[in-house]
């Protein structure tokens, strides 16, 4: 505990933590829009395409100057987005091929430039490798201002165009019919995603940046259906993963931050996919089991009612074997007991027979009528 306290007390670590949380929140917020607009893999292509820009910025500035590196990364990212658009619009190649080409070729050019810089740069170029996998420990205090500025700008822009972004994300055709400049809004969202990628490179690196965009948003989506809540939650998950990843990476010497952050964010996704109320896998399995039980109970009740009707005896005592014949399977003992507990049926004896018999109670008859009424309407208007 004291070790953790020492770690948190250190000025450097505080800087790194703040930066990591800031970057995580930013990519979480903008990633929500990318995921909703099914542009997750565009993020992958743009982040790989940032590598030549990082080297370009380094070459122009002659050293590790964050401003120049970010500008370079943003420039080649934009170039990649334009190339994507050109390929998809002007040829018959599909989007996935365009994404793959842009991603791999830009990255390859980046690798060439990286080796070029490293061949002539010596010690000064050592920091460049950290952009591949991310190295939160390399975040300087002066970097925080740039990150904070970009984050604030993105936040203000998102708030200012909230309604428009929402409409474009969910129903672009309707937005166009309403006279909104859809192309400009989509471009603005793509530019903001590119910005998030560019500033996030220090945390996650070009290869894994895509996960930092997608994972928080995919996790947040499971918990809520509202855009506002989703964006906020996504930002929170991103910030938490970023900070936790930076902490782990700082505590263990030499572990790259990117993979740690990605694994933490992925854990959040797995947790959400399994447990989120309403959508989660476990939740849905329980709901399905409950629905199956309800339908099974309804069939038992209506079968008993059927026997009573056939014998014109409301208090007819049905033998359990008759139920089995009517349902096609032996009625589960647990369900019979549960129905008896709810006071809908009761076990009765029918001497001289020794097999178990069942009889509908008053409440059971009402329930059976309700169930068959429900069934009747369901039959008239199938969903």
């Amino acid at each position, binding site marked *: 505990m004291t070790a953790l306290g020492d770690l948190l007390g250190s000025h450097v670590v505080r800087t790194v933590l703040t930066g990591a949380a800031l970057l995580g929140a930013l990519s979480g917020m903008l990633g929500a829009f990318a995921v909703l607009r099914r542009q997750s893999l565009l993020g992958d292509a743009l982040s790989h395409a940032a590598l030549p820009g990082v080297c370009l910025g380094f070459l122009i500035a002659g050293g590790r100057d964050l401003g120049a590196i970010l500008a370079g990364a943003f420039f080649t990212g934009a170039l990649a987005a334009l190339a994507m658009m050109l390929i998809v619009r002007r040829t018959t190649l599909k989007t996935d*091929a365009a994404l*793959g*080409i842009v991603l791999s070729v830009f*990255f390859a050019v980046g*690798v060439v430039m990286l080796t070029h810089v490293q061949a002539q740069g010596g010690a000064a170029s050592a920091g460049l490798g950290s952009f591949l996998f991310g190295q939160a420990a390399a975040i300087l205090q002066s970097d925080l201002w740039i990150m904070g500025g970009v984050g604030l700008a993105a936040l203000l822009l998102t708030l200012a165009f909230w309604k428009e972004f929402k409409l474009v994300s969910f129903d672009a055709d309707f937005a166009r019919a309403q006279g909104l400049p859809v192309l400009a809004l989509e471009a603005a969202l793509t530019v903001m995603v590119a910005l998030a990628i560019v500033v996030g490179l220090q945390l996650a690196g070009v290869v894994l940046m*895509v996960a930092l965009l997608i994972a928080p948003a995919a996790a947040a989506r499971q918990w809520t259906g509202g855009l506002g809540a989703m964006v906020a939650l996504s930002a929170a998950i991103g910030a938490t993963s970023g900070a936790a990843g930076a902490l782990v990476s700082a505590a263990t010497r030499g572990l790259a931050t990117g993979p740690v952050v990605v694994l933490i964010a992925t854990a959040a996704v797995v947790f959400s996919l399994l447990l989120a109320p309403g959508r989660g*896998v476990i939740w849905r399995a329980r709901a399905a089991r409950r629905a199956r039980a309800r339908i099974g109970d309804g069939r038992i009740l209506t079968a008993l009612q059927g026997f009573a009707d056939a014998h014109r005896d409301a208090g007819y005592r049905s033998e359990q074997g008759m139920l089995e014949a009517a349902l096609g399977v032996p009625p589960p003992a647990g369900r019979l007991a549960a129905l008896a507990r709810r006071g809908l049926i009761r076990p009765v004896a029918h001497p001289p027979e020794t097999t178990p018999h069942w009889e509908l109670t008053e409440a059971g008859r009402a329930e059976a009528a309700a169930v068959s009424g429900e069934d009747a309407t369901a039959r008239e208007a199938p969903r």
Partner: protein
Amino acid sequence: MIAAFFDSIPAMIVLTGVLVGASAALLGSFLVLRGAAMLTDAISHAIVFGVIVVWLLTRQTAGPVQVLGAAAAGVLTVALSELLARSRLVKMDAAIGLVFPALFSAGVLLISLHARDVHIDADTVLLGEIGFVWLDTVSLFGLRVPVAVATLGVVLAVNLGFALALWKELKLATFDPGLAAALGFFPGALHYAVLALTSVTAVAAFDAVGAVLFIAFAIAPPATAYLLTQRLWLMVTLAVALSAAACVAGYALAWRWNVSIGGMMASMTGVWFALALLFAPRQGLVAQALRSRGRRLDNDCRVLLAHLSTHQGAPEMPEENTLRALVDHLGWSEPRARAAILRAHDRALVERRDGLLTLRKKGVAEVESLLGRGAAAGL
């Protein structure tokens, strides 16, 4: 002489590249046509996890166990992504983007935790070390052949055998999966077979070009060939040839500029694609621009003919059937009007008679075919 070839370092490096490029482009063609190119991205990242796990379990860095075991991780990624997408909790693109980074991260972390001293470290995972493939050799038929070359040679042979043996089935399953399924072939199984072979190829190529550059070889050459031809066999052949050419050119340039060999080879596939994008005979941007320019000119020409036929023989003819009228009345720029007149003149549709533009016989016929017989009846 053969021994000298296998002892030459540059020859081995280029040969490795060519083998990687040919194997990847062969399979990549079917993936690009199917619209599943980004699965290569997922597979080639995920095998990092497979490579390190198999190494931790068996301590083998090469051989069939290693290749097949690591390739399983690639297929696993695709299967997991599809499972996740089918649960409808996330969309397919997000599912891909969730699964492979997770496996890749786990792989990278395992490498930095357990395998620092081995030949794999985090940077070679991404980029490969094609420059050092000749260090690790194996003896085959009395020749010292690099292990990478031997492995990739076998992989290429398997891929080639697969493609040739199942050519018809692959073609059908790629272009019309519905019909393939109806005819009793298994398009899903074939698709997975292609993906499994892609994984195997990615693993075999891993030491040479790493996780990311492999994608360039698998996607860019087939996409380039796709822009150049509409025949499948020609597309696959071209893709393989372009891939091989990229390796040769890339090595030469990398040697000259002293930069990453694998990176330069992959960059060259991008250069081929850019050239095809610009200059492909049918789909290229230049050809498209020329075509649309030609169409615009033809259209202007038709407007010109209609204009002339309206006024020909009428009292206002001296004013209307001139270049000036096209500029002043139709609002055309002067070069545009001149180009249209020149075009009509070249096609013997109009002539200049007494300084006025006049329809010739062929021009009258063209107007009639355009506007109907009545329109030119006054002539």
